[in-house]
């Protein structure tokens, strides 16, 4: 009996380690978003690029699209940028949301680094960002053909994120619609 009591700590500890070991396999960057399976919040944003139409939540219909949040002052966005340009070359519809940024700075950023976006809206005040629950840039939302948010990726999209996670989801959504 006494021996059992002394063995209790090691048994409890083994259980905790087992739980941690399973917990480690989970990806911490998958922050929960309350928007998942909810309609995209309504917004109408002015254009980033001069002589352009801007971006509205009503435009997310008919086909699954990506909504990428970026800013000219964001360093990680520059890391992600080549991946977005590659997506454009593959014909993936990506829209841009220029967050807490001047439209002229955002436009210059796109002129210098290349422009991966079909449509781009400027969220100068960051108000739309609040509705979207943006914690930092870059972030990317996957929105299905009914205008529902299906997935949120936090941080830059690495090529493996695209091939392993986002592309399969986009293919699935396209088949669904």
């Amino acid at each position, binding site marked *: 009996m*006494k*021996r059992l009591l*002394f*063995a209790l*700590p*090691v048994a409890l*500890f*083994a259980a*905790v*380690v087992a*739980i*941690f*070991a*399973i*917990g*480690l*396999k*989970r990806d*911490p*960057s*998958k*922050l*929960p978003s309350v928007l998942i399976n909810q309609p995209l919040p309504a917004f109408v944003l002015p254009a980033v690029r001069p002589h352009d139409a801007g971006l509205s939540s009503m435009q997310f219909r008919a086909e699954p699209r990506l909504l990428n949040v970026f*800013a000219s*002052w*964001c*360093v990680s966005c520059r890391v992600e940028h080549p991946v977005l340009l590659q997506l454009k070359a593959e014909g993936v519809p990506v829209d841009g949301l220029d967050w807490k940024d001047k439209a002229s700075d955002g436009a210059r950023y796109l002129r210098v680094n290349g422009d991966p976006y079909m449509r781009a809206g400027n969220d100068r005040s960051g108000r739309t960002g609040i509705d979207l629950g943006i914690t930092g840039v870059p972030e990317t939302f996957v929105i299905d053909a009914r205008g529902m948010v299906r997935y949120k990726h936090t941080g830059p999209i690495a090529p493996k994120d695209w091939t392993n996670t986002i592309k399969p989801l986009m293919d699935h959504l396209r088949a669904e619609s």
Partner: protein
Amino acid sequence: MVAEIGQLALILAFLMGLCQTFAGFAGAHRRDPALMALARAAAWMQLLFVGTMFLALATSFLQNDLSVALVAQHSNSAQPAIYRIAATWGNHEGSMVLWVLILAVQGASVAWFGSSLRETLQARVLAAQAVIGAAFLGFSLFTSNPFLRLNPAPFDGNELNPLLQDPGLVFHPPVLYLGYVGFSAAFAFAVAALIEGRVDAAWARWVRPWVLASWIALTVGIAAGSCWAYYTLGWGGWWFWDPVENASLMPWLMGTALLHSSLVLEKRGALVSWTILLAILTFSLSLIGTFLVRSGVLTSVHAFALDAKRGVYILGIIGGLTGTALALFAWRAPAMRTGALFAPLSREGGITLNNVFLLGATAAVFLGTFYPVFVDLVKGAPVSVGPPYYRMTFVPIFIPLLILVSFGPMLDWKRNAWWNVAGRLRLPLLLAAGALFLAVLFLGMKFVLTAGGIALGVFLIAGAAAVLVRRYRFTSGGDWRRFARSTPLATYGFVLAHAGLGVTALGITAVSAFQTEKVLNMRAGQSVDLAGQEVRLESVLPMHGPNYQAMEARFKVGSRSGERTLISQRRFYPVSGTQTTDAGIGVGILGNTYVSVGDQNPDGSIVVRMWDHPLVDWIWAGAFLMAFGGMLSLADRRLRVGFAAPAFRAAAVQGAA
């Protein structure tokens, strides 16, 4: 070149750790003096190599050698020199280097001061420490090498996280690490004792200074961290129950329990296996603290590196070290004889109760911290546990503990009568009751909890003072000179520490109940009333710092003690594209005025948040008082090894080996 020297030193230190492990365990097992001497020499060599490694890394940062990947990631030419040095440990790889440096200093000091220890015990302690050292050096070497080169070197480097560019950072992590790692000595002593199969008063006398020193460092580290969060995070909170804060709180709670139980072991030879268990658990919680920050099991503001491979390695270290130690405990501890018996109402009993409450509080924090991981496993949906959970679990466990604190020193060893104890605390009890009555009278029944907090603080301070009063009146017979001569430093130490708890309790009570907050748009020249003080926004101007641009707002506060200027800045660090807020804080003994500015509106006004925080500084003052008490106790010559009185030796307990 410098980085290569560091790399070489890292490899040598790792090999030296393996050598020390083998020499220590094998030497003690065979009672071979030559091998045991080798273990001691290896401890010195390890300090030499790890020291070289640390200096090499710090030099690379100071010279801004951008061909070292770590330097390029965390330092650039515009960064002030002091933050380039602080960047040495302000990142994942570098902080591991600091970790092993502190470990190596400890190993060397066991080799240096340990001549009065039994030689086999010393060798086994050194070997156990070397296992920890080698594990972490291997971690550095294989998963997070700080000396990796970049080719070609970038033109200019990235930047240390601006939140970390603060005088607090230069100071906070090293002190905290000193505490975390310090408990490794207690752990090594526990493992060595389990292998030896015997624990005696000498063992406890050896462990106590380490535990005390680590506890002091952890107390200062936690208080400094809380203080730093208060003034940099820009929203005036002082404790957030953030996983990483909890990670430092858990070893502190457990270390406090260990500090008290090792006292019983030293003085009375009781609580033998319990103390060993606490020593193992305290260091394990420090390891889990490290694990938390690095693995990404939990995300947090503090997280340095989210890398699952590192997490697996650290989990392996924790599983290996703690698992082995606890298995050893299950195997060897039942055979160790338990010490002297005591009645429930005795100082031993009081300390046991203290331990039970501290363990309960640690368990509450542990569950709250890891609950998200457990839930994620069961339901697959991450959640987070907020302050309400801790208010419901931690606080109800901690308050009875605080009430007990003043009773402990009034209890005698072995047995007591309860009316004697109550009689000794007559005055503090009366004072506390008076405080409770007055507080309810002035604040009303709505503030009955606040009144309870105030009474508790008063009881803690008065109860601590009563120890000295009692000593003066009875032990010294009312003679000041005899009192001054005969009262040991350790007595002043625990009196100050217990009183410090009271000061902190008063601070927490006041700031939780009486703080006022205002959020508004202000223009230059506008004034507003905050808790009876006039706060006026003087000007809003742009300014340039060494590596940031800022919008600076100047405020004039007409306070109880005259007028003063507070400056709050909204800073933008272009290299990393981060924005931080530097709050303006008017510090006063009765409370702080805290202003923090937000974004500027298109019409030129700015968002201003302001708080009045009554007695908030008492929270940290109390903590520093506790740490100071610990230092006095540490300075007491009776604690120093080599002064063991014959009476203590006689009380030594020997287990069945």
